[in-house]
């Protein structure tokens, strides 16, 4: 990937020289010093009874990142109400990407949101799963020819489960969680690996869309 000298670099992220307390001059490159630039490493997929048990635990304890990305985010709050009650299935909401496993991309993604979604996705610890909610994430839906939204989420992040509809009802979302559980229990929840293996391809696609990149390639 070519190094982008971009005009969007924020002043606080520029390379600068700072005087240390002992009088020496040190160079600070915030994008390198303040973030971890290490690329994701694909892990070796294990098999056997222990791994099956761990997969069962992973499936029965899905922590969802509460980040409303599109109009579908209005379908998520009903899941904690008595009518749908996702806690029954071990699905819980978390507020921080560090503690969550499932990223529900709820609907269309504008270029601005896509950048935040990528950063957030990369901050989640593996194994992580993506549920794409609504037609907009599959082919753009009603925003197919919009100037400001992406059409296929699959080109930017690896997606585990698609839920079609505009908008899908909360029941559909619950069914999606059920499908994701099945996949994990069968040992097919390795999309984070796919992201690490095809890292260059994903980054190329992402950088085509996001003009003001202004962040490290992979930020932890």
């Amino acid at each position: 990937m070519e190094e982008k000298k971009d005009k969007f670099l924020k002043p606080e992220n520029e390379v600068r020289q700072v005087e240390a307390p002992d009088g020496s001059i040190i160079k600070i490159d915030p994008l390198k010093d303040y973030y971890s630039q290490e690329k994701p490493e694909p892990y070796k997929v294990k098999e056997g009874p222990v791994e099956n048990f761990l997969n069962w635990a992973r499936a029965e304890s899905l922590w969802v990142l509460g980040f409303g990305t599109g109009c579908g985010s209005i379908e998520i709050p009903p899941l904690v109400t008595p009518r749908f009650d996702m806690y029954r299935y071990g699905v819980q909401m978390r507020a921080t990407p560090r503690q969550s496993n499932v990223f529900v991309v709820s609907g269309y993604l504008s270029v601005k949101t896509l950048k935040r979604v990528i950063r957030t996705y990369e901050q989640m610890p593996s194994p992580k799963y993506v549920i794409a909610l609504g037609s907009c994430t599959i082919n753009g839906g009603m925003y197919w020819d919009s100037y400001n939204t992406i059409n296929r989420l699959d080109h930017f992040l690896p997606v585990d489960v698609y839920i079609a509809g505009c908008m899908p009802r909360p029941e559909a979302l619950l069914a999606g969680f059920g499908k994701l559980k099945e996949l994990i229990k069968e040992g097919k929840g390795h999309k984070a690996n796919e992201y690490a293996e095809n890292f260059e391809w994903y980054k190329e696609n992402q950088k085509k869309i996001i003009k003001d990149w202004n962040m490290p390639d992979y930020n932890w």
Partner: protein
Amino acid sequence: MDYDITKFLWSLLGLFIVLNWGMLMSSTMRRVGARLAGRIGVPLYQPWVDLIKLISLRTYLSHGFMYYIGPAFRLVGGVGMFLFMPVLFGSDIWSNYSFSGDLILLLYFQSFGMLGMAMGASESGSPHAAIGISRGLSQFAAVEVPMTLAVIAIAIQHQTFSFHEIMAAQQGGIMNWTLFTNPLASIAGMLAMLGAMSHSPFNLVKAPNEIPIGPPTEYHSSFLSVLRTNSAIIHVVEAALFMNLFFGGADNWIEYIIKTFFVYFISVFVGMVFPRFKIEDSVRWFLKWPTLIGIIAVLVAAYWS
């Protein structure tokens, strides 16, 4: 002090029981809350599954030495509280490592984990963690005041800082409990307990829907599993602390489990009824009524003794 391996093993068994009881109790209380909201709630085994899942995550990220030590400090706070408090009254094997001044040590252990966590979370560099810590420490400083006043009142009443003697003085019927022999200290202590349990009116620090999760914002995988292990232990141990001080302690494990359940249930019950306080409001509240009652309790105890 002579080293006794059997005593150590008994304490370890006690810790195992307390840990599992804490997990079961937390999911039970979540189900109680869910029923109140008209839901069914999490399965009873959910805390164990969460723990296994957290340990089995594939990627880790560390922010430095104190980031590792923070959860360890927190766990030491919970385990230390368990180890230096007698579990059952009148039992030699279940008396753990209690000694004549254990009540003072317990008060220190309560804040020990909090301080360790503050150092660890600030190492993570997240501004949310920094805000959470400042909130948590200021609330805890306010909680400590009525709690210490209640403990002082009880210590003056019974002329001792030993759990065992305080429990011994409460034997022989419900009317001998501190709850009835020293109601003012009990009220101040139980109000402080609401803060120490950090349940709903006073859970601004760690509520998931406030600034993300508070101090443990950056904690994940095994770090978070250690924190959750500790929270399971500390809920039981805190309940046991107040049970020993105000509700006569326990003679056997059944009584221990029932009493800790109900002491914990008080804080859950209050949490279900009252909405969350802002941090400045909760600090002001703790420094007003519970503190006032605590001061009166100390004065009354000093006058009558």
